[in-house]
């Protein structure tokens, strides 16, 4: 099920909230939430919901065993088992086909392996459950004695399918005790409706704009078309993913959970490092806390730091998809980040506008790499962006530009922190009352209008 679907908006959400708030006792509320979360997941994955429950049960048992283990070796064994067991599903479903194909290409043997269909959200919930097992091992959090509460943590529908990746320690307390004040409800619903508008109005229109002159499988016909395509994909990806995070954070707040921010206007960043502090923050935090720092971080010298960064970015690339373009994309950012860190003093001497422009261009080039799993098509697009013997502009791109000319400025404004600033301005004028809420409701209703017209519109990050 998707947040931006009529089934969710008209049936699932109202039914959930009625039952949830009718339940006074937290145990009942948790029960309602688990049942609805499993329905939410099963709606898209009626069979694979069993994998989700199985993975949770496995980690629950491992953590309980770890808790009972008397020796450090026993605890470590439980951890290793837990990590291997959790990653096994992810490796099989997401990477087995990729690795086997790569091996067969390398060594020239033929094998018949039908890669299984990737269960929705497996990358997200696998990482989430890992944070629990690792944190219990580290003693950072006590073991969860209730399987149902652990299942609620993993399956809680707002963040289940496309993040943000919520670390167990961030919500452990809320699983046992939480409440929803009227302020939580209003702020959460507002955030949700604005996120819905971001997805339905901005992200989907960016997608239509992009497809109108660069349908899947075609190469750009001009330099301008190539850059416009890259820029539009960058915007679409941002709106799509950050909209999902907005909706997740908003719904979490309505249900009494407090999720951390996942995006902070990344296209305003003035360096690659700053970009990754603002883009998919929860993924960056996961790799920092569970990979980079355990590997030694930057404490073991420059060479080791670069190696650790290389591992982290190769994994980050692979996490997004089992294809070589994602590996290249990860390495591309690794190079940029190493250069950024090593030349930071020199970098700061460049005017801020130029630093911002460079970062934006670097991000757009990065998203072009991200877009194409077909390396030949990727090469053609990159070549087109940097000349490639093509004209400056083609008729198709120009025609689409005319068709969406007035949308482009709106999209650019949407990628800037306009809403928070407007919110601050409104708060300074009490006379403006609940203008923000009226705006959010209007956005929600317009989104509904668009949804009646649009067919199924899944989020891009579902496939990761």
């Amino acid at each position, binding site marked *: 099920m998707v947040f931006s679907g009529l089934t969710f908006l*008209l049936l699932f959400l109202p039914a959930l909230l009625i039952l949830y708030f009718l339940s006074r006792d937290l145990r009942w509320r948790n029960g309602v939430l688990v049942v609805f979360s499993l329905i939410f997941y099963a709606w898209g994955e009626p069979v694979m919901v069993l994998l989700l429950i199985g993975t949770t049960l496995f980690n629950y048992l491992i953590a309980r065993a770890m808790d009972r283990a008397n020796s450090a070796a026993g605890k470590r064994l439980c951890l290793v088992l837990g990590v291997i067991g959790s990653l096994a599903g992810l490796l099989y479903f997401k990477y087995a086909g990729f690795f086997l194909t790569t091996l067969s290409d390398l060594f020239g043997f033929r094998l018949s392996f039908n890669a299984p269909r990737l269960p929705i959200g497996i990358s997200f919930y696998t990482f989430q459950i890992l944070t629990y097992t690792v944190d219990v091992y580290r003693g950072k959090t006590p073991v969860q004695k209730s399987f149902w509460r652990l299942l609620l943590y993993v399956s809680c529908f707002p963040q289940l399918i496309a993040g943000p990746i919520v670390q167990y320690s961030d919500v452990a307390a809320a699983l046992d005790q939480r409440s929803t004040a009227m302020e939580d409800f209003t702020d959460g619903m507002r955030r949700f409706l604005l996120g819905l508008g971001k997805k339905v109005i901005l992200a989907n229109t960016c997608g239509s704009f992009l497809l109108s002159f660069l349908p899947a499988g075609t190469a750009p016909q001009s330099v301008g078309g190539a850059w416009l395509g890259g820029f539009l994909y960058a915007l679409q990806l941002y709106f799509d993913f950050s909209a999902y995070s907005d909706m997740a954070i908003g719904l979490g707040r309505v249900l009494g959970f407090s999720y951390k921010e996942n995006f902070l206007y990344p296209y305003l960043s003035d360096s690659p490092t700053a970009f990754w502090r603002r883009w998919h923050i929860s993924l960056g935090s996961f790799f920092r806390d569970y990979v980079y720092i355990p590997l030694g971080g930057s404490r073991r010298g420059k060479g080791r730091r670069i190696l650790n960064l290389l591992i982290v970015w190769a994994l980050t690339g692979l996490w997004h998809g089992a294809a070589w373009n994602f590996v290249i994309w990860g390495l591309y950012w690794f190079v940029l980040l190493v250069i950024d860190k090593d030349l930071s003093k020199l970098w700061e001497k460049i005017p801020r506008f130029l630093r911002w422009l460079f970062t934006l261009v670097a991000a757009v080039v990065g998203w072009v790499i991200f877009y194409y799993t077909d390396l030949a098509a990727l090469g053609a697009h990159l070549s087109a962006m940097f000349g490639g013997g093509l004209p400056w502009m083609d008729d198709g791109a120009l025609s689409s530009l005319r068709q969406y000319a007035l949308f482009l400025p709106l999209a650019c404004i949407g990628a800037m922190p306009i809403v928070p600033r407007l919110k601050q301005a409104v708060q300074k004028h009490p006379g403006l009352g609940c203008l923000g809420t009226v705006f959010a409701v209007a956005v929600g209703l317009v989104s509904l209008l668009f949804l009646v017209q649009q067919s199924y519109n899944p989020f891009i990050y579902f496939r990761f």
Partner: protein
Amino acid sequence: MSMKRKLSFLLLYGTLVLFGGLGALLLLFGEKAPHASLTENRMLAGFPQLSAETVRDGGFMSGLESFLSDNMLERDKLVQAASRLTALFSLEQPSEAAADLEVFEQVQSFAQGTEPETVPTAVPSSPAPDAHTPAPAALAPADTPAPTDAPDRPDETAVPADTEAPATSAAQAPSNAPALTEKDLSTVSDCIMTCTEKNGKQRMIYSFPKANVQRMIRLLNAYRAVLPEDGHMFFAQPPFPGVANYIRSGEYISWESDLEATINAYANDGVYMVSALDVLLPHLLNKEYLYFKTDHHWTPRAACYVANELLRQLGIDPKPYDEYSFTVYKHFWGSIYWNQPERRSSMMPDTLEVLIPETPVKGWVIQWDRSRKEGPFMVPNGQSYYAYLGGTLGPWRRFDTGVDCGRSCLVIGDSYDCCFIPFLAPYYETVHATDVRDAYYDFPHVKWSISEYIQENQIDDVYFVLSTASGVNTDYLIGYLYRFL
């Protein structure tokens, strides 16, 4: 707690209640059977089948999403509003408006170019048909056996057979309807239209409840009764393009309907319903261009095939489509293109063949006060379906065809008749037309019943040409046409 916060809460709470209420309404009262949308040129989804298989393969979930979207209250208006909002992003609006404006201006120049004059209340006509109009051939024989059984229902259909009959408040018999002698209609059964998928599975497209079929027969009989003794009441219900395009694409290999046979068996002499399905099917299977891709209408070619089939019922040997002359426009973008910008990227322009009349046809738009202004027949413009007759103008249209045969006909239809009428023109001295869907048929304005119009203009034959979207199950046919008779 501040008033602002309370108001915010109430607003958001109200929005949730609105969403939930809408969902409940759709589940309870949404149309459960698939049905056609004229605006979107496709079949709208019915309620999905719930079974272990459809849950496992996700068919139920995606079907429910489609059901909620397709059955949204006032869907057509919402879709158009969303399209207008999306169009705000575009700089292309002026050119679209210009295209339409250009056609409208041509229509207006036709309509305003002549001073009003009064239509003679009775146009004399030659009672004897001349060489151009041979004596009508026998219609469907009155002794055609009535179907004894409804056809077998498909084993597995996507549509429940119990499509509800539409509101019948408007379906009262007219006060001036002549007393009719009718066959016994009590044995009429429900009728269905089905398609056969390429895997052999039959899928119901429309169902026509018995009550609607009976009303339809009575309506046709009533119209037949106000015509002269040698007059004819013809009815064609062209299939909706969404279904036809499935056949053209090979998804469906056939379609069947028992409606026409039932109507022809039970209606009085002089009434004949052509099976547009049967007429068009071989041409669709032959991949002929019968429906536009970017517009929700049929092409002139399809209209000509159906018109010719009806003309054959009069004993006329009509001219084949390919023997007419046309001005061909290769870059026609139709209503779907303009109304659904998000689909534009996948569309290719249509070709519009605008008929070149063989005789100097003079068109008129006639008002309720019987004044008339000159109106268009063929508009030399390849940018709009308005090229045919300038679209729907009214309340009445009249075309003096320049053919001296002494016969007149009246075509009552929806916009599908615009393409159809030009192919009747070579065989009638005058062709009249009306479309009672439009606003000018608001009751306070109606000053002329259709039967009065038929008598004043000495109409010989009446044609109902309505797409399935305005056909047997709709108020248009079984309601308004009774009222206005």
